[in-house]
């Protein structure tokens, strides 16, 4: 298939026409076309499983399209791998950064094209490598010694290194895939400023994100995907978030957050945390979560919120303090003991800690429950019954999959993976559910469903502790919010209406300010 001459957009740096991709006979990407001009930014949005990342990976050469053509600077572009994409001037900032902790900042930046001493000898010119790295880091606004090992850098700094790396070669197009998921608010603002500067320099960007306000703010045009098909390709002028959501879902989203009934009186405490401490991590944590209560932890990245969740669930040690469920102290600090006490933890890193990626959806769903349904470790698991329950929960959670029994969790989109983790715990009907970033990298539709599930669980008498970077989320679903900073609970706020500024200010305070 080739372009008709009148279809060629002569000013476009990248033109994509009718891109399609099938996996095992199932078409996941169904005809995407767009053109991208220098200095312009294209937003790529859609629900989880709408093949955004698939489209981006085709442009980046990681996948080959089943059909369709691409042009870069009016030349046919058919990459055989990320190397070709790079050579064609495409930089890709992956959601999980592509950097190496055991190399220095300078080496990471120069990885794509090490400067040579002399042409014929493959020897790296280290002096020039460092000089060039310094220049590039200055461009992205990161002040750091280029000899620092990458392992010492914070997440936001690493992302700037990644962008510097993309700029190290003659880059025309940079693709950002969910760049803000692991950034603090301050780091995200810095990133947006940088993207604006890159646009001014004539670099075209493709921006993939679930945070639609960011997309509206940054992008000039938006491609909206639904189930792999392109439903809209429009300019962001006059576009509204609610229209984008409607277009993505194919239906208007009634309410993101479920309706809440005001709480009356003080609930009996179900989860009690008393004096929990671990040097250098958390200090003297004291709080309780009542029956049917949803308590939010408002903290920035690095406030100790995730570490606290891991300690609560017995994954990490604590030197002092105790955790009690329903009045009885959890004796041993291990996940097993916590599960026996009817606790559950949805971890921040669902791929690493929450799921067995190559295993099937059913195997993942039944994993936590399996231990409960048998009288001893040596008895046979009643798989039939377990599977029926799992199928039920999969339906209730609306997990989008063609075959629960065969399909590996790896093949699911982020949102559906998260639903599997949630389903795994819901099967056990936990009394205490700790959720660490339950909606990270998940589209609005799935978000609303997960909120509703949390709400239902609480209504049925569970104590829920939610950690979230997006404070709006906490304001929307929590009965109470605890602000966390430098490993301590620094303030407590009662709902249902919260003083947003006060919560944010409390979460932003530093240890020096506090003492």
């Amino acid at each position, binding site marked *: 298939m080739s372009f008709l001459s009148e279809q060629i957009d002569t000013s476009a740096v990248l033109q994509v026409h009718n891109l399609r991709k099938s996996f095992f006979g199932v078409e996941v990407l169904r005809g995407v076309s767009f053109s991208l001009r220098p200095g312009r930014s294209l937003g790529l949005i859609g629900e989880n499983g709408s093949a955004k990342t698939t489209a981006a990976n085709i442009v980046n050469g990681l996948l080959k399209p089943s059909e369709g053509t691409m042009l870069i600077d009016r030349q046919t572009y058919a990459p055989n791998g990320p190397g070709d994409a790079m050579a064609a001037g495409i930089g890709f900032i992956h959601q999980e950064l592509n*950097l*190496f902790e*055991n*190399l220095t900042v300078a080496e990471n930046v120069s*990885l794509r094209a090490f400067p040579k001493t002399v042409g014929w000898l493959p020897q*790296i010119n280290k002096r020039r490598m460092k000089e060039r790295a310094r220049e590039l880091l200055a461009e992205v606004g990161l002040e750091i010694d280029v000899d620092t090992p990458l392992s010492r850098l914070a997440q936001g700094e690493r992302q700037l290194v990644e962008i510097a790396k993309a700029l190290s070669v003659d880059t025309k197009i940079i693709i950002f895939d969910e760049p803000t998921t692991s950034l603090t608010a301050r780091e995200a603002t810095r990133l947006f400023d940088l993207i604006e500067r890159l646009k001014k320099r004539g670099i075209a960007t493709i921006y993939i994100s679930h945070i639609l306000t960011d997309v509206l703010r940054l992008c000039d045009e938006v491609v909206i995907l639904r189930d792999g098909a392109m439903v809209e390709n429009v300019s962001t002028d006059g576009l509204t978030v609610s229209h984008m959501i409607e277009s993505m879902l194919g239906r208007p989203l009634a309410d993101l957050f479920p309706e809440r009934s005001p709480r009356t009186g003080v609930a009996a405490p179900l989860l009690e945390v008393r004096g929990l401490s671990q040097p250098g*991590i958390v200090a003297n944590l004291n709080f309780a979560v009542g029956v049917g209560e949803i308590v939010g932890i408002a903290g920035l990245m690095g406030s100790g919120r995730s570490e606290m969740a891991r300690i609560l669930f017995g994954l990490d040690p604590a030197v002092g303090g105790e955790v009690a469920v329903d009045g009885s102290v959890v004796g041993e600090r291990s996940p097993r003991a916590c599960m026996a006490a009817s606790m559950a933890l949805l971890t921040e890193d669902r791929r690493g800690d929450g799921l067995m990626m190559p295993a099937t959806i059913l195997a993942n769903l039944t994993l936590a429950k399996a231990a409960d349904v048998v009288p001893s470790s040596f008895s046979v698991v009643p798989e039939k019954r377990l599977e029926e329950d799992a199928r039920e929960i999969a339906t209730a959670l609306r997990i989008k999959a063609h075959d629960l029994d065969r399909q590996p969790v790896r093949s699911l989109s982020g949102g559906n993976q998260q639903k599997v983790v949630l389903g795994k715990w819901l099967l056990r009907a936990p009394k205490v559910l700790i959720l660490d970033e339950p909606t990270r990298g998940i589209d609005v539709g799935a978000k609303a469903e997960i909120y509703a599930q949390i709400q239902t669980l609480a209504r049925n008498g569970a104590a829920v502790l939610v950690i979230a970077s997006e404070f709006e989320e906490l304001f929307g679903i929590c009965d109470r919010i605890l602000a966390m900073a430098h*490993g301590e609970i620094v303030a407590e706020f009662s709902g249902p209406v919260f003083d947003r500024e006060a919560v944010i200010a409390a979460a932003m305070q530093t240890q020096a300010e506090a003492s």
Partner: protein
Amino acid sequence: MQASRQTLRLTLLRATPAIMFMVILVLFSMLSPRFLSLQNFANILTQSAYMAVMAIGMTFVLLIAGVDLSIGAAMYVSAAILILYFPWLPGLASILLMAFLGAVFGAINATFIVKLKVIPFVVTIATLYVGRGFALYLSSTRTILAPETVLSFGEGSWLGVSYAILTLATLFVIALWVERWTPFGRYLYAMGADFDGARKAGIPVWGMSFAVYVLCGTFAGVGGFISLSQTAAASTFFGYGVEFPVIAAAVLGGTSLFGGRGSVIGSVFGAVLIQTVQNGLVLLNINPYVYPLVISGIIFVAVLLDSQRTQLLTRLTRRLIRTETT
């Protein structure tokens, strides 16, 4: 507080092989008057040369979190072919031939690993047995004697330095240059840290892997030549089980079995350390059946050190959230 104590422990763990080396030196020199002499150290270096050369090749494999268990077979096969079919070759050409045969052996490993995506452990354990079997077949399970040209290499020296040490020194310098100064070397570290990430970063990971196994085979061929020149014959046990001390040498020198960490400097040091122990045991007239016990003890220590280091490093790189004011 806790962090600084862990840093101290890490420094101690890193220094353990060096401390072990010192202890062994002191111990052996007290027990045997012949141990602490320049001549004996030249001997140790010459004797450790073959293992050190192979440890260099192994370091590259370990850096990308792979492993090659077939190096002993590679050295036996290439030695058998040299002796049986090319005994008339001059010295230098013999080295090159064995290096080439080792490279071919490595390329066979690499083909299975890279093209068919079989895990290195399984591939190299298979080629280890196939290779030994093939060499036994070629030699009709007889001990075969090395030709004169090879023997003269073993006896030869230049300015009082044996050819074995010279060969080791040359390869060591080249390997160090590759490791530190070339994109190839830097890519090895990136691949060891995150193989899939390296692929996404546009590093030709499969081509690199192929090259690494070929290199390891090449170094095994050269190591085999040095060993052959010293033992004067290839018995049916030539190169048997050599992979274990070689891997131990690399790991003792700080190369991680988990990939991404280490250096050829450490590996050469590790090989010398192991040879020093053997040399001491010989001088002390210890029952030869005790050697494997001692060597396996060292291997155990090496692997233990590696896992402790890895654990400590993950703990140390964990970021602290608050400063304790006590």
